[in-house]
């Protein structure tokens, strides 16, 4: 055994990364920019996730919200819902966090050439799709139309609003809706499936990328099927209790899937359509 092999950290040892910037996106969502202190993790693909450690608190799975291959720090967008995510959300510039990864399946950007793409997101669900959206916006093709449909509870809970507007200026067909709003809001008010109804292209042959709360994904997937999108062309991002990240511990099992390895991105058909209603173990 070589010296390098002996000194290579095991799969459960996180690399230390420094928080070099942070931004409060909404009242409970924060984006952290991380740069390596130790040798960096491997290159990632859009849709994959890392296990982030708040030292002394714990480790959780967080989607990577920057684009693959982009220079500079890796971005992770964290929603403050528990002890670890709270600690990560509170990280200050200069703090050290742990990073293991990248893990799981991706959105398959290489399969999106020459096909129309509809991206449907709810709440913080745009974070795992942000890298894919940046790729689609920056790699425009006359053979591919792209539509983005965004749902949020309130206008001030829309994540990355400036970037969404910029994508619209770059030729993406963008529609945003909220559940309720003050009269000053001139956008749409209603459920995200309502703004799905008017796609700028035929759903047949299109590929759909869907990420958000699972109930929203269920309703969105059904609406997409009604619009002619083939169920096998709908990709959803499923999350369960990711722990080891390498399909050993079984905490993230969902039917035949170990989602840390076989997900988070899975085709809606044939399995996810049934599994998406199963609760966490």
């Amino acid at each position, binding site marked *: 055994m070589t010296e390098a092999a002996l000194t290579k950290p095991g799969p459960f040892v996180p690399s230390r990364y420094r928080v070099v910037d942070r931004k409060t996106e909404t009242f409970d969502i924060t984006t952290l920019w991380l740069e390596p202190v130790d040798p960096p993790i491997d290159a990632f693909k859009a849709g994959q996730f890392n296990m982030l450690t708040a030292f002394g608190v714990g480790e959780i799975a967080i989607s990577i919200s920057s684009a693959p291959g982009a220079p500079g720090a890796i971005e992770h967008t964290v929603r403050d819902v528990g002890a670890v995510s709270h600690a990560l959300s509170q990280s200050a510039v200069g703090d050290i966090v742990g990073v293991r990864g990248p893990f799981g399946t991706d959105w398959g950007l290489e399969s999106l050439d020459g096909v129309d793409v509809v991206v449907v997101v709810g709440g913080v669900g745009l974070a795992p799709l942000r890298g894919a959206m940046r790729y689609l916006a920056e790699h425009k093709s006359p053979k591919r139309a792209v539509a983005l449909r965004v749902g949020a509870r309130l206008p001030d809970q829309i994540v990355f609003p400036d970037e969404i507007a910029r994508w619209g200026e770059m030729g993406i067909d963008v529609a945003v809706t909220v559940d309720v709003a003050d009269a000053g809001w001139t956008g749409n008010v209603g459920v995200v499936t309502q703004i799905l109804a008017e796609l700028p292209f035929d759903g047949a042959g299109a590929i759909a990328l869907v990420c958000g709360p699972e*109930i929203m994904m269920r309703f969105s997937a059904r609406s997409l099927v009604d619009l002619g999108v083939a169920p096998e062309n709908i990709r959803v991002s499923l999350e369960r209790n990711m722990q080891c990240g390498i399909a050993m511990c079984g905490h993230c099992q969902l039917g035949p899937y170990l989602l840390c390895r076989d997900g988070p991105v899975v085709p809606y058909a044939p399995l996810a359509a049934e599994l998406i209603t199963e609760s966490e173990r």
Partner: protein
Amino acid sequence: MEEMSDLIAKNSLFAGLPDSTIELAVGCAQNVAFEPGARILVEGEPADTLYLLRRGRVALQVQRPSGKPLVIETIGPNSVLGWSWLVPPYRWQFDGVAIDPVGAVAIDGTCLRAKADADPVFGYALLKRISGVLLSRLQSTRVRLLDLYGHSLDD
């Protein structure tokens, strides 16, 4: 210039219905336009019109004690605005305010009800379509009651 029957037939509520059915609605219809900010529906006022939106969006909103209205839904082109003319007490339940310049076909609700009463075939066809739209709105409202993006249900 498009005929009124064509304008009505293009709306999702009437699309695909026989010409004879469309013609019955034509007799109750007129073209209307509203500037942004116009109150098309006024909460508590008599409800007597069904609007088939051709262009622009309308915000359904409710006045709050603070004075700042709350928007509960937006209705867009090719959709239908206003159901309270259909059943007693025929009063608008919410305000409907034009967000953009709005063009619509306004169908007199009393006229439409009278024709539906007099011609059950027409009335049944109309109510089946209306039921479909109302069911869709009800389902959307139920989904929003789930507070999908909030903390309560998905964490």
